[in-house]
């Protein structure tokens, strides 16, 4: 094997090993969405990087432009639990379990937790170049997961991080 061939092989092996590690948390979240979105009790939406980039062209508002340029992709998943859908409690437990498992394995920061009566909103952040902001909205009538993938910089999160928002 020549020296150059060894180099090529090393680069390819490094790519194979490091690629999945670099983006695995985002990939895992997308996998959760893909696993549940075909379920009849679930409503979901995926907004592509192309659509998000296009949306930036439709606004003259500087602040809106700044935010939208940082967010590359958005996904929402909702399970309704009222009326005839009351049997979906188990499904919600299962989805929550998937996310709890993720939060335990990656460096997510819980940036916010708001409880109002029976309703709870939690905001999780993975502050990286290919990071994300994730909202879990849990109430007796529905459960939603909202994820925004993108470049989560200090600037975007300044409002939350500055002064340290108290989490309960």
């Amino acid at each position, binding site marked *: 094997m020549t020296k150059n061939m060894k*180099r*090529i092989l090393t680069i390819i092996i490094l790519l194979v090993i490091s690629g999945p590690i670099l983006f695995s948390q985002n990939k895992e979240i997308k996998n959760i969405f893909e696993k549940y*979105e075909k379920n009849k009790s679930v409503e979901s939406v995926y907004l592509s990087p192309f659509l998000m980039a296009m949306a930036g062209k439709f*606004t003259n508002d500087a602040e809106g432009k700044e935010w939208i340029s940082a967010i590359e992709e958005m996904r929402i998943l*909702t399970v309704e639990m009222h009326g005839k859908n009351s049997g979906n409690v188990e499904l919600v437990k299962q989805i929550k379990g998937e996310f709890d498992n993720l939060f335990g394995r990656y460096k997510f920061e819980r940036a916010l937790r708001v409880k*109002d009566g029976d309703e709870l909103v939690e905001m999780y952040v993975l502050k990286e170049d290919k990071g994300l902001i994730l909202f879990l909205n849990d109430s007796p009538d529905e459960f939603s997961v909202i994820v925004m993938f993108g470049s989560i910089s200090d600037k975007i999160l300044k409002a939350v991080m500055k002064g340290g928002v108290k989490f309960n």
Partner: protein
Amino acid sequence: MKKNITKEIGELLEKYFSGETTLKEERQLREYFSKIEDDGSDPQIRGYKDMFGYFSDESDKVCLKEILLKETDTVKAGKKAHIIAPRYFTWGLSAAAILVAGIFLFSPGTKQTFEFRSNGKKIHDQTQAMNFASEKMNRVNKMISGIGSNNRVFNIITKTNNSLAPLAKMNKALSQNKG
């Protein structure tokens, strides 16, 4: 050309964003937006002009590249056919190998601009998809705004609200075109 988007073009845009247009229809959209006037008063005209202008430029670049490559090949065939040094050839091969490996590893696959599913079925309606996204986001914003006395939290609410504002504007533009 007058600056209003016709009903026919509105319908084509709807098809385009659902990923259902033919190549001929996409060409029709590019031609339409290359000719339409933009006086800067309507951001949707500017948005579409930028978008279809970009695609048109890129396809021109591809054509130009093809012509240049053909010309280079002709010149090489007449003069120096084996001018590439083996060292560059090896590095060229490694670059190609890395590129191919990268495409296989990181390619997310072809996806539509949006995908909305309800009851396990795909719904090809961008307005409905956007309304759904907006409704869910507003619900979260409403919850967070319940603790609005905290100024620091208020800042993030404003930001997240703004995050959907450009999408709402684009959606509004598409809905108007529909009618």
